[in-house]
């Protein structure tokens, strides 16, 4: 089983695909769940406090906007943990949405820096492309080892 970072990190479909093929998806659900299950509920909706953008300084300098650093405090640890990644470019909002373009550029860069296996795909625009899309993901995940669904 490999730990696979998914992009968009909020994509439930992508997360489900990775889990179905026997791997551990690393996405928003993990890091956000950790935050909102922590004691107290001081800063709804995500329970991110001003401390989190400071943790984000590990991945982005102080002149980088606080929203980028706050996001990096969620995704940075997951990137460090990742053994592989699937990146879907220009995906539809309904497939998964990552709010900040600057954060997105940074985290894709950091993933590529790691030298881990990465599958980069464009979001499908037709049924045929959709079939090829899922087949590509399946083949990539199979190549990482683990059980098949």
């Amino acid at each position: 089983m490999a730990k696979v970072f998914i992009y968009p990190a909020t994509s439930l479909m992508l997360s489900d695909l990775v889990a179905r093929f026997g791997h551990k998806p690393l996405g928003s659900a993990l890091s956000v769940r950790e935050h909102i299950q922590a004691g107290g509920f001081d800063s709804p909706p995500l329970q991110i406090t001003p401390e989190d953008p400071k943790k984000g300084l590990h991945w982005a300098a102080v002149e980088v906007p606080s929203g980028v650093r706050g996001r990096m405090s969620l995704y940075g640890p997951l990137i460090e943990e990742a053994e592989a990644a699937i990146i879907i470019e220009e995906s539809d909002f309904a497939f998964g949405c990552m709010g900040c373009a600057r954060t997105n550029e940074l985290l894709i860069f950091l993933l590529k820096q790691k030298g881990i296996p990465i599958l980069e795909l464009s979001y499908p625009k037709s049924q045929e492309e959709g079939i090829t899309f899922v087949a590509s993901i399946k083949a990539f995940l199979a190549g990482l080892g683990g059980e098949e669904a």
Partner: protein
Amino acid sequence: MSRPVRIAQLTCGAEYSGVQNEIAEAARAVDAEVFYPDISLRDLRRDFGSFGLNVKSPDLKLAIARAEALVTGKVEADAVFIGSCFRCAEAAIVRTELRRYIHMNSTLPVVSYSFTERTTSGTLLTRMEALTTIARRRALLAREEQTGITMGVDSGSSTTKCIVMKDNEIIGTGWEPTTEVLRSSDKVVADALEEAGLTMNDIEAIGTTGYGRFLIGKHLNADLIQEELTVNSKGAVYLADTQHGPATVIDIGGMDNKAISVMDGIPGTFTMGGICAGASGRFLEMTAKRLGVDITELGPLAMKGLSAGVPMNSYCIVFGTQSLVNALAAGSTPEDVAAAACHSVAEQVFEQQLQEVDIREPVIMVGGTSLIQGLVRAMGELLQTEIIVPHHSQYIGATGSALLASGFIDRKKE
């Protein structure tokens, strides 16, 4: 009990900067609630496309679609808060354009702000208070004449001011540097009453504003305790006799600066905040002190000088003072240095704050710094317009308070 004012939140990064709770708390403190305008995925695709600003960040696309929903009336709100991360260029473009778009296409009051993780509810409080006042008290803000005998007290960070008005005329004034808040307030109230030839029993209604408004409001049992954004804009258009149509009010204060775009005496968009001390009235006080002149002499001195030959443009009061000392040591005249200091403050307010509001003529400068002619001239040159400085401009908050307080006389009688 009135229903809470509903403030639509159009932001990018607030939740991830850890300031969402601060925004909500600031709203709660003034009996308002923030909410995200609900839109469908279809609306998001269509509205963002029709707006025509092709930004990359989906959260900014969402903010644009939400703004369209507010302007077209698909979602109802009483006011709008636009916010994004400080230092994000993409968001700054969207923030400016959305503010302008909402201001031009609706009557919703708008405030925009760029936050960091250090932004607190206290920083946002005055802005939220102004938003709720505009939404809740439009009838009160529409008042154009002062009636009866009223008093306004402005407890500012540097000075405390008091005005007594009777039948639409100023009949008493009081002015003191702010030391102990209540003592300074008592002194200006006594001075203004003495000048007016009245006693406290003659006063029919009282309004307070400024940093110490809550404390002195309670002390004086005020009828109106109001933040300075709405009060100052009201006072400015009243004294400048520009109550109808557009106007822009600029107040460079001792601790923070305000720029307010006004329509028919009611603020539409506004910005407030200290940039750094190098762009405040405090820097001009320092300059006067270093030049060995009283602050009242700085303006006339600056009018005799030319700023161009003296390099001075620091946000920081320490570096600004350093430039000042260097210029004097290099042989610059006090007149030129005074002019450069005025230009430096005006330029920074122009660059940092006036970009956040739509400058529409007439431009009115108020507050104590508006008496420094060199500063008014420098601002006029930057904005390429003739700036109006109304009479009693240093009493703007107190005058606005006294004017608005007269709206409470009839209510009391009822």
